[in-house]
């Protein structure tokens, strides 16, 4: 009897030892793994998710890493992250400079996704927001040198909406125009065709994850002119005319004529007088 009790005590002790060893090891391992996983929470700048991608955090919980989107991509744009790459293992992404998204009308990658990690509600590919193109290097971009290029503008599938060309003055020559490509986040799908087509050795325009590329206005901000338009009238009492501390008899108009001297005496013959008035 004593022996059996002893034995059961021993086996219970062994069992408890076993359990605590297993639990200890598993917990330690879990902590390490949990910390490691935090590094992969944000996508590296060069990696773009497929069209229809839901919020990155949700995506990392929804995607089962099956590769069906990769298989159904007709242009071999999408890849699955391999071990050693800085993207969460097994998840799909593409590098715009290598192969950009061709924005298929039937969006086969989204149709293929079995989990909803790529939102099946995306019907029109123009509504995709894979990332946002940003003209990052204005020193290298030849449009800023006054040269005609506009390749990024011309390859853009949503041309004139996602990228437009804004003209401005060429200060270097003093008489020509600069034709500057400007990206509009309201319409840019992040397909990356601009980055792919950029004629430079390294692209001046790059697609970035939207979160990285976009700023966000403080939520309390109200733009006066927007509010005025919405309300149909000015919502504040108009400012009093600003009083400048100017030489007697002169006025200053900020946006139009600058310094105005309404009572300027007509020029007389004295050269010194003309000089003092700044006119010759």
């Amino acid at each position, binding site marked *: 009897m004593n022996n059996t009790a002893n034995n059961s005590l021993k086996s219970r002790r062994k069992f408890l030892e076993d359990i605590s060893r297993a639990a200890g090891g598993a917990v330690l391992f879990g902590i390490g793994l949990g910390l490691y996983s935090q590094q992969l929470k944000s996508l590296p700048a060069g990696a773009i998710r497929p069209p229809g991608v839901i919020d990155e955090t949700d995506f990392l919980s929804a995607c089962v890493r099956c590769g069906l989107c990769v298989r159904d991509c007709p242009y071999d744009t999408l890849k699955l992250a391999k071990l050693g790459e800085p993207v*969460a293992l097994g998840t799909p992404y593409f590098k715009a400079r290598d192969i950009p998204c061709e924005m298929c009308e039937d969006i086969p990658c989204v149709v293929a996704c079995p989990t909803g990690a790529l939102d099946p509600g995306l019907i029109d590919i123009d509504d995709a927001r894979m990332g946002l193109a940003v003209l990052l290097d204005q020193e290298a971009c030849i449009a800023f040198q006054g040269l005609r290029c506009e390749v990024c503008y011309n390859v853009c599938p949503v041309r004139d909406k996602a990228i437009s060309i804004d003209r401005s003055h060429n200060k270097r020559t003093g008489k020509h125009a600069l034709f500057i490509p400007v990206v509009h986040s309201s319409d840019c799908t992040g397909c990356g065709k601009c980055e792919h087509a950029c004629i430079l050795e390294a692209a001046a325009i790059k697609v970035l994850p939207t979160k990285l590329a976009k700023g966000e206005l403080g939520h309390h901000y109200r733009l006066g002119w927007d509010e005025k338009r919405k309300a149909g009238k000015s919502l504040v009492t108009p400012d009093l005319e600003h009083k400048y501390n100017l030489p007697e008899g002169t006025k200053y108009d900020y946006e139009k004529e600058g310094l105005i001297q309404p009572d300027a005496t007509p020029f007389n013959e004295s050269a010194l007088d003309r000089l003092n008035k700044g006119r010759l």
Partner: protein
Amino acid sequence: MTVTKMYTDLGQEAVKNKGWLRAHKWLLLRRISQLSILFLFLLGPLFDIWIIKGSMSSSLTLDVIPLTDPFVFLQTLFTGYIPVLTVVSGAVIVSLFYFLVGGRVYCSWVCPINIVTDAADWLRRVLKIKTSLNFSRVGRYGLLVVSLLLASVTGMLVWELVNPVTMIQRELIFGMGFSWIFIVGIFILDTFVSRRAWCGHLCPMGAFYSVIGKISLIRVNAVNRADCNDCMECYAVCPEPQVIKPALKGGADRSPVINSGNCTNCARCIDICAKDVFKIKHRFINSTTSQHEVHI
């Protein structure tokens, strides 16, 4: 019976009694199953024949049938994400299948890592490696719990960042990255550190399938246990030897059905047994054939 016999003459008596082919029948069938499943996945990328698309995490067969690994799916659920119908039905189909044929049939008939760990076990026997380090067989359940907890705490499929099983399957099908390091690692672990360390002690995926297979229908049955001559060879080849004893040596009042969810239904015990003690049956066959003859 001596211990040395276990390492050198393993299976020789079975080969003598039944012929080489019958003594390796289930082993061969398993290898064919593992390789042809992998081959089916590779038919598409290699020869543009798309019978099955995707990977073993989730796939689409003949553009109709969705199949999803229920363990990966469960992790997704634990993150709090509510998935769409396709992946749910895929996971249900696969779960039902393993519920019928035995949960860990996944491990021994599908998972390519099994080939690696079987090879490691073979090399261990050939080189007569004996190591005293033993992982706890409960450890895998610990890792299973941790993998699900991590998913729920971080909201990510954290285990899938390091899961060697899905990683190797995926990289075999989609192009090799560095996951071969994990293959080498598991091989070294199983060969030189501890017997059957990965599949039998650590892998949470195997633990998950053990749970699915806890009450599954198809079972190995020590139906002719009265014929057992205590050669111990089944214990030597079994990846989970602790599951055999209750069925084989449990006494007349114990069922001959191997009832543990840890049994992988690999049927290597059937191959190796010179006395044909084991058969594959469904779980409700509880009587043994020759038992009463012996008792009479």
